[in-house]
């Protein structure tokens, strides 16, 4: 037992070592289906989200394969135009609203944010469960709309097409509205959690970059999502009551819809990608055993992206008929958002300098992310330039661009995160060789799928086309072949990860030798994460300090809440009891 004197508050600290394969952990302290369905444990909710987003990823993926297969030949290959239009709409809507937006924040974020903060749970555990059920409810409503007539508007719901076409658009926008509230509540929860639930000693400069990225993401979620909600409500009411805000036939303005829609949907791109940035920072430092380079540059650039991301939505509308003045301002601001993103890329590269780099599978996925996201980002610069955008807008160039960012960037980062944290979530190790092979397959498959799309896009192939002119067939066929390779890669990952749960080797609490807080608890973690409130002494990237300094301290008396505990400046006397 030792005592740490600080000028602020007296805290007694005792160290303990994490166990692997503990008798009691979050999966066996409460058991049974009812315990799962009513759990307020952020880890179980995170796992339920993980299972759900994985399910919808595969559903959306099957839609993608159907779309690609149909495009093997011009006009009808095996499905009708109307069916094709519904399938690409569902592919987009499912991937965006049911997979990309909740994937990292709600699944991995839920699981690891409280662990990284040294908290027992998020600030509002019941609200967290409500978020999950709203997500499920929204998904069910969306499924009802598919069964009940389907929708063919594209995921962007542009008016007046969406307010006049047949099908179950009203049901679908209601489903997205509900999912939006799920997203908002997660954002509210995370912001409060990061502010109020940090363990003593965990000052802002010791906050993990993953937590910083979730903080930036949550800000976007709470500021942007409500505008989407009201906009979709207006579309629904336009169909039900003829409220004429957007439909010119009723006196409205369709371009106004686009403003409101993109006010959400452009920042939403950052809801999808910024948490991925957080994972990159965690994985790069862990597998290079190196302190992050430019901690503040990376942390603050996330906030900068979140802010500037709100100012650029009009770059989706350069040819929509908006005023040239607006196009100029939006184009200018669009280029500014490239700067903080570039800063991140450079800082990550610099982190590797003089590191001790181990090419384990999570890092391989991150390197995949690096190349693909770089291409995605730079083609974003191309599209931000108004003159080029006029030519490329709504062509396959745009399709390829956002798939490079969303799949090449975000999905690769998500997979890196899943592989990185898998041992902590499940207590098992997966087959590393298979993981590396799958990573390679996905990287190759991805490029075969989407590089040809850049080419046909700049040659003039418009998106959302069921039929196309002969000239583009070769590119479509290469792309289709690539999509099958990509599909095989994802199925393979699913196979070896699920297999590891049953037959995988038991994981030690910290198999990668990480300094981050979540690795200092048992594998599997206890139900309430920490048996005692931990006191944070070192930063999560202090790889220059020996591992044993990172063992958790516990606050023996005095809980430390509400104080800035300056433990790092006091002398430590770790002692066994």
């Amino acid at each position, binding site marked *: 037992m030792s005592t740490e004197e600080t000028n602020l508050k007296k805290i007694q600290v005792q160290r303990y070592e994490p166990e692997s394969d503990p008798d009691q952990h979050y999966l066996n302290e409460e058991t049974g289906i009812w315990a799962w369905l009513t759990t307020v444990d952020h880890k179980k909710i995170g796992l339920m989200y993980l299972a759900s987003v994985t399910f919808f990823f595969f559903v959306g993926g099957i839609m993608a394969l159907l779309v690609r297969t149909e495009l093997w030949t011009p006009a009808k290959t095996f499905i009708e135009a109307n069916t094709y239009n519904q399938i690409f709409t569902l592919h987009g809507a499912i991937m965006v609203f049911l997979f990309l937006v909740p994937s990292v924040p709600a699944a991995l974020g839920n699981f690891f944010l409280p662990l990284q903060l040294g908290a027992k749970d998020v600030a509002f555990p019941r609200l967290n469960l409500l978020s999950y059920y709203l997500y499920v409810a929204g998904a069910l409503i969306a499924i009802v709309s598919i069964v009940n007539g389907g929708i063919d*508007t*594209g995921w962007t719901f*542009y008016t007046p097409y969406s307010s006049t076409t047949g099908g179950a658009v009203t049901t679908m926008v209601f489903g997205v509205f509900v999912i939006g509230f799920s997203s908002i509540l997660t954002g509210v929860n995370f912001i409060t959690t990061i502010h109020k639930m940090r363990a003593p000693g965990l000052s802002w400069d010791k906050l993990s970059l993953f937590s910083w990225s979730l903080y930036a993401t949550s800000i976007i979620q709470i500021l942007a999502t409500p505008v989407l909600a009201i906009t979709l409500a207006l579309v629904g009411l336009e169909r039900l009551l003829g409220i004429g805000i957007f439909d010119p036939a009723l006196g409205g303005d369709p371009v106004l819809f686009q403003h409101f829609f993109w006010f959400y949907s452009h920042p939403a791109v950052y809801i999808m990608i910024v948490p991925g940035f957080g994972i990159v920072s965690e994985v790069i430092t862990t597998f290079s055993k190196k302190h992050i380079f430019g901690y503040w540059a990376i942390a603050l650039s996330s906030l900068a992206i979140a802010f500037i991301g709100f100012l650029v939505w009009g770059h989706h509308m350069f040819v929509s008929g908006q005023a040239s003045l607006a196009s100029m301002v939006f184009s*200018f601001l669009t280029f500014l958002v490239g700067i903080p993103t570039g800063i991140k890329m450079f800082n990550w590269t610099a982190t*590797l300098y003089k590191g001790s780099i181990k090419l384990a599978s999570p890092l391989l996925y991150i390197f995949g992310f690096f190349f693909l996201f770089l291409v995605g980002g730079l083609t974003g610069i191309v599209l931000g330039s*108004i003159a080029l955008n006029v030519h490329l807008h709504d062509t396959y160039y745009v399709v390829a661009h956002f798939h490079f960012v969303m799949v090449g960037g975000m999905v690769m980062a998500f997979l890196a995160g899943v592989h990185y944290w898998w041992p902590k979530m499940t207590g098992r190790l997966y087959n590393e060789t298979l993981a590396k092979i799958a990573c390679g397959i996905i990287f190759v498959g991805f490029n075969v799928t989407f590089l040809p799309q850049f080419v046909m896009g700049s*040659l003039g192939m418009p998106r959302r086309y069921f039929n196309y002119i002969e000239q583009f067939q070769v590119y479509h066929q290469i792309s289709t072949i690539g999509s099958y390779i990509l599909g095989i890669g994802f199925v393979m990952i699913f196979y070896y990860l699920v297999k590891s749960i049953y037959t995988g080797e038991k994981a030690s609490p910290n198999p990668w030798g990480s300094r981050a807080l979540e690795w200092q608890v048992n594998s599997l973690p206890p139900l309430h994460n920490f048996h005692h409130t931990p006191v944070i002494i070192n930063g999560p990237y202090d790889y220059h300090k020996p591992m044993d300094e990172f063992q958790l301290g516990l606050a023996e008396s005095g809980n430390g809440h509400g104080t800035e505990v300056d433990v790092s400046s006091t002398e430590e006397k770790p002692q066994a009891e």
Partner: protein
Amino acid sequence: MDALNDLLLPPAKSTLAHQTDTLFWFVHLSGLVLTIGLIGVLIYFVIKYRRESEDEVTPLITHNNKLEVTWSVIPLIMVLIVFGWGYQVFMEQRVAPDDAYEVNVTGQKWIWQFTYENGARTNGELHVPAGRPVKLIMNSSDVIHSFYVPDYRIKQDVLPGRYTEVWFNAPEPGESIVFCTEYCGTSHSDMTAKVIVHEEGEFENWLADNAGGGGMPEDLAPAEWGEQLAQEWACSTCHSADGSDMTGPTWQGLFGHEVQLSDGSTVTADENYIRESILEPGAKVVDGYPNVMNTYQGQLNDEQINAIIEYIKTLK
């Protein structure tokens, strides 16, 4: 360079297309240099600093403000160049010269219609003179469409309830394809058209021949003209002539037969019924088909409607 251009870009057939292309290559090549550079450094680090033992200790390097400023400011300058350049080219594309020749464009599911100053009308074919700026004043009669000519590097959404404008100058006679690039439903991908660029004198002749628009060509029988009109006005996008099921009911075996309507009643498909269906498509909707057809009131004249009916009569 030209070979490279053909690989990634369609032929440049307007006076301004080359400006877009130069910028296109500038941004792509600078991007390529950056990608190769950054990935090269990454690969170099991975090889040079690969982990040799688990006990390795790495140095503490937390940040370097000079580097941060460098890699913020240089990209900033680069993107500002791209911004300014892009904006300048855009403004040239945007502002039509005062002497531009005007053609009116109507987008409608799923057909492009063009009207000329002397009343000539075409569907799916835009005839313009070579070497003269042409200004299109565009409007949609249903949902948003977008007028895109890859060869000219121009694109502009076509909105209901408002006019938008786009212009180009094609110096050489020839043909270019027009796509609709704003998703507009079932046959969105078939909503294409052709720009046909004539020599100046030839264009004047063409225009004079088509003045007023819409008379029956002398060399055609009414049913033949009807067939031609059905193609031109994109009727055949939704109504087949061979019995196959499309967005709308087939025309084969339609005339003189009973039709089951969505309100449960039946009607005989005679001249009056077909005329009404063309002018007021929502009045009697055939059972099992969506009520999506637009009215052709004020677009097709009586003579044309009669010709189409004659054509339908031949589809037994």
